[in-house]
């Protein structure tokens, strides 16, 4: 029997990995992939608690998270295409048009 804390530990490590990816990568597309890693870590957490606490709510919220990840990927990649068309770069350090 695998304890619940093992699942939560895996999820915490994956979340930290995604967070590091968002902070240190300079390519916009890889930053979005790191966000997907973080969403997956949250999903593992939700499903594990749903199983161990015997409730269906966690799996339903995990489904909503997957739907939101799909929307985020579509809009984020559309923004990347628009930015790339204008500046020919997907480096997040060079995207400072909105900086005050």
């Amino acid at each position: 029997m695998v304890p619940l804390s093992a699942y939560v530990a895996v999820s915490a490590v994956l979340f930290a990995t995604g967070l590091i990816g968002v902070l240190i990568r300079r390519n916009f597309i890889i930053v979005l992939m790191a966000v997907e890693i973080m969403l997956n870590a949250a999903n593992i957490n939700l499903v594990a608690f749903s199983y161990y606490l015997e409730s269906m709510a966690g799996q339903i919220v995990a489904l909503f998270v997957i739907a939101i990840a799909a929307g985020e990927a579509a809009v984020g990649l559309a923004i990347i295409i628009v930015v790339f068309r204008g500046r020919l770069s997907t480096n997040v350090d060079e995207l400072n048009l909105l900086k005050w």
Partner: protein
Amino acid sequence: MVPFFFVYFSLVSIVAGVLTIAFRNPVHCGLALLTLLLHVAGLFVLLNAEFLFAVQIIVYAGAILVLYLFVLMLLNLKTEERYLHARYAVILFAAAGICGELLLLVLRSPFGGLKGDAPAEAVLKDGASYAIGIKMFSDYLLPFEIVGVFLLGAIIGAIVLAKTPTTVDIEQSDR
């Protein structure tokens, strides 16, 4: 058998996650992300969530990842010389510390709690998709509809953003 598969799925998904943010070539990053998604789907099977397992493979690996790879091919990015942030060592050090403390706290917690109304036997009697369907279309109907509206908004937003801009003729529009 379950602990063995748990160790396999979790170790491979963590390694794939690290490789996703460590590879230099964006296409390799996408393939590492695919490995991560498939092994997270395996973790879902261990947790009796067969419906989420199918959704994870169909939606994440089948749709979202193909969208990423499609945009990568479309943009034809050149691999940059410096692909990491200038001060990435500081961030790595801080993140490792925070993650270590988080793990310490997580592994010491008992995680007891109030049990819900769906024990494993009741779920396995009719299958996980039956249980999810009954719950989603009764108690969670309003969030379900809101997600539908959200997806419609995301579709329209993505189309409007990615459309080729038409050049506006100022003299034409004045008259």
